[in-house]
């Protein structure tokens, strides 16, 4: 499998960088940013396979970010991270096309598995789109 291009969006810097370094160790191509706005900017410029969004962020929250992100790059699979029992946000997010969501606390291994699954699904979508364009 090629290296997965992952966009990690979380306002808590320490948490984000620790997680990013652990994911990098697993051979994932991680880019991390601290806000929804930065994420949107980045996704206009570069391609990603999977995005991991924290729902609770100041400014543009995870759900808003998800909406914009899906508009710009519909094929990116999004995994949401939720804390403090925000079930509603989870429902909303899944409806808006998030691939899945993880409730905190989760262990990195679970996240990793989800990222891989999401990536596989993204590849499927992509190749499907290519076939569609050919016919």
């Amino acid at each position, binding site marked *: 499998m090629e290296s997965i291009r992952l966009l990690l969006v979380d306002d808590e810097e*320490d*948490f984000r960088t620790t997680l990013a370094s652990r994911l990098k160790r697993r051979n994932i191509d991680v880019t991390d940013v601290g806000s929804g706005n930065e994420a949107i900017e980045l996704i206009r410029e570069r391609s990603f396979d999977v995005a991991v969004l924290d729902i609770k962020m100041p400014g543009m929250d995870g759900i808003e970010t998800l909406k914009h992100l899906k508009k710009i790059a519909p*094929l990116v699979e999004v995994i949401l991270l939720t804390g403090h029992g925000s079930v509603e946000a*989870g429902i909303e997010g899944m409806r808006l096309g998030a691939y899945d969501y993880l*409730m*905190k606390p989760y262990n*990195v291994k679970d996240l990793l598995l989800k990222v891989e699954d999401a990536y596989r699904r993204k590849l499927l979508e992509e190749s499907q*789109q290519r*076939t569609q364009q050919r016919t």
Partner: protein
Amino acid sequence: MPGGNCLKRLNSGLNSRLKPAVVGWLNLFRRKRSSKDTFSPDTLSNLFRFKYSCFKMLLDSNAEFLKVISDIEERLQGQQVFGMSYVRSRAAQAVFHALRMVKNLDDLSGHRYTLLFDILEKINLKIKEALGKRKEIPPTELILPYLQINAEMVDWVGGKNANLGEIHNRVHLPIPRGFAITTRAFESFMVRNELFDEISKKKVGIDPDNPETINTTSEEIRQLITSAQVPAELEDAILLAYAKLAEDSGIRVSMRSSATGEDSELSYAGQYLSKLNVPSDQIIHAYKEVVASLYTPRAIAYRLNKGIRDEDVAMSVACLQMVESAASGVMYSRNPFNLLEENIIITAVWGLGPYAVEGVITPDSYTVGKNRQTIAAEISHKIVKLISKPDGDLIEVPVADDLQDKPCLSQEEIDILVTYALKLEEHYGCPQDIEWALDKKKRLFILQSRPLRVEDYGKGYPITPVLTAYPLLIEKGRTASAGVGFGPAFHVVSDQDLLNFPDGAVLVARHSSPKFVMVMKKTRAIITDMGNIAGHMASLAREFSVPAIVNARVATATIPTGMEVTVDAYSGRVYQGIVPELESFQNACECPMKDTPVYRVLREVSDWIIPLHLLDPKSPNFTPSFCRSLHDISRMVHEFSYTEMFQLSDFVSDKKGVAFKLKVSIPLDLYVIDLGGGMTETNVHLNSVPPDKIASVPFNALLRGIMHEDFQKSQLRPVEFKGFLSVMREQMLSPPSKTERFGDRSYAIISDKYLNFSSRVGYHYSILDSYCSPTPGMNYITFSFKGGAADDIRRNRRVRAIAVILQSLDFTVEITGDRVDARYQKHECSLIEDRLDIIGRLLQFTRQMDMLMNNEASVEALAKNFLAGNYNLKNTATTRGQKSEVRSQESGGRNDSRKTPWD
């Protein structure tokens, strides 16, 4: 397709920008049904894999959802203390998994189930409403004296503190003086030091596969906590409370963990730290140490495994004046060794309590009648005692000569203890197991009181006499959960029986099953012919305080449904009729939680989660708009997911150049779709492929089983008339759309290492997915088997027979109604192949299993026959369990030379 009509309404026009490519294709398959269309194998391959990845996620969440339900049901028994944090986290989990199921069904169907999101949202709203009814005002106090604490405050002070408060304020008995350091204090300590953030960062370092990472992380976290600064106002509050307690006398205290939420039991189980004999200048440090014990490696691992969030646990601390025990002991408000007498038993030793229970010395023992008459007093020879040293350690010292044979308690003290025991039993509504202490000023204290679990004391021998005046039906069953229960017997064979289980009946079954958890609330007792006292059901029965006897051997034969019986699960006996002598022991325990507001919230929340209204997929009401609980949603999603999985295969099999019919000598309508490397050559013009051109490792293994010679020899099995009629009737009654599906068509989507096999061999459907490579970690088989003709009972018998077989092949198996989901993973390729071979045989074997499932014994007989390699169902048709067992042994069992995994 069942429910097809209603689903049309579901196309509520999802925002097109969110519609990904696959969706377009899924819907294309649905619309265009012209044979002119051609589809590349790539397209199909992707579609199948996409659909299956959704299906798998859906099944995962289904299993998790059912676990949440049984957990809530356990708490609804009302015997375990829980707070709002429990209710909230369980509700969130239930919604989460229902949501995941809906989302994946919606995805795999091309967004034709968006309506289910609305319904889910509505139910979630109701749940939220119910949760919101209990407005908690979090305590602002950092410290609470016991005078202000009762059982309902468990979220603020933890289980241990809450119980002590209850004993002091509602039962009005003396407890050691002291105070609780609340969860508010805990929060302020953690937040002020930004410990929550620090800890969650540290926890990123945990790799559950590597226990060493848990140890190092635990150490780092505890180090963080103990070196943090307790906020000044908290320190002041603790020291002020201590000063009030000490009244300048420099007393020492014990600091005991009293965790909240789901960890509250861990406090009781001694998982968290307790510090004894703490002097005033070490109180603050001891506080931090107790708090830090929330993060011992064991506690971290426990929460990770159970999926408990850190936000949902908090540590309150019990700060109690050390009682300088002259004597101490344990007291039972009812004799646990002979239940026919209602006497109170008090045991006592000199010094500290542990010696009264640990068996180091024989304690004094007093037996006192409820009328306070001392019936027996056995004063033992007590040469040593346990005391605490000034530094807090416990040491053994000799007892002074003149005290060694002296009673530890005076008559007056015995009287007082008896009064306490009776009061506690009255307050909690059930017999109590009580710890007490007597200080040097001859004052008595209650240290703890909890429900008496009689089975802990019987040690396996009967503790009730045989009552000869009543007909004895079962004499030598084994006690799985002690107690007495009486009521009319009710036989449980299928899941349907569990759904119909009458309130107050006695459950009688052939095997014990953890599924009985569904009726634990309703049943008065459980009797099974077979079963294990250390099994899962046994522990559930104990958890729920339902008397249970296993290994009763002849229960299903001698106790018909409807017969009134009295179950004496203390001694493994069952009597016919009601036995008044035993009556007073039945369900002695009232449930202390049941009157609390928190319990009522859980009850209300669970009404939106647990009840299952949609039982029959054929009913016109089996539609999203009739879903009234999360359970309804999950049931419906599960049902529809199978239909959806087949739609694509059905369509594709008609296409030339994509699907190849497998050329075999047996009647098998099997189509093969190669994703790459699964076939060595194909004849596009003939649209068929012979088995020897299959190069897919897992498919070849499965085919070996399907084409096993035994099945080729005996094509037609005699069908018992009764069974045949039942299958016929079922077909006639099914709507036409359903009968259409009975074309025995199967599909194999393959690559060199991959197989997805969906089949409708016979009247059932099954979906198998497997990966078989040189890397064991990647390998798996998931197998789901569902539905079928014949009535529910037969269907369920077959599913259970399959479950028995798969379990004995080391599969992890979940049964839900007429469905069985099994998985086998991370094994070597050769083992995977063996299992696939057997599943192939199993698929053939089950072809007409329904018709043979006439009675309960057939479940095991068929499973046994199959596992013995005896695939000829001829003589098992009228199954007498034992008979066919003998048969299979005579015939040498395995008529198969291949090495099978059970060799």
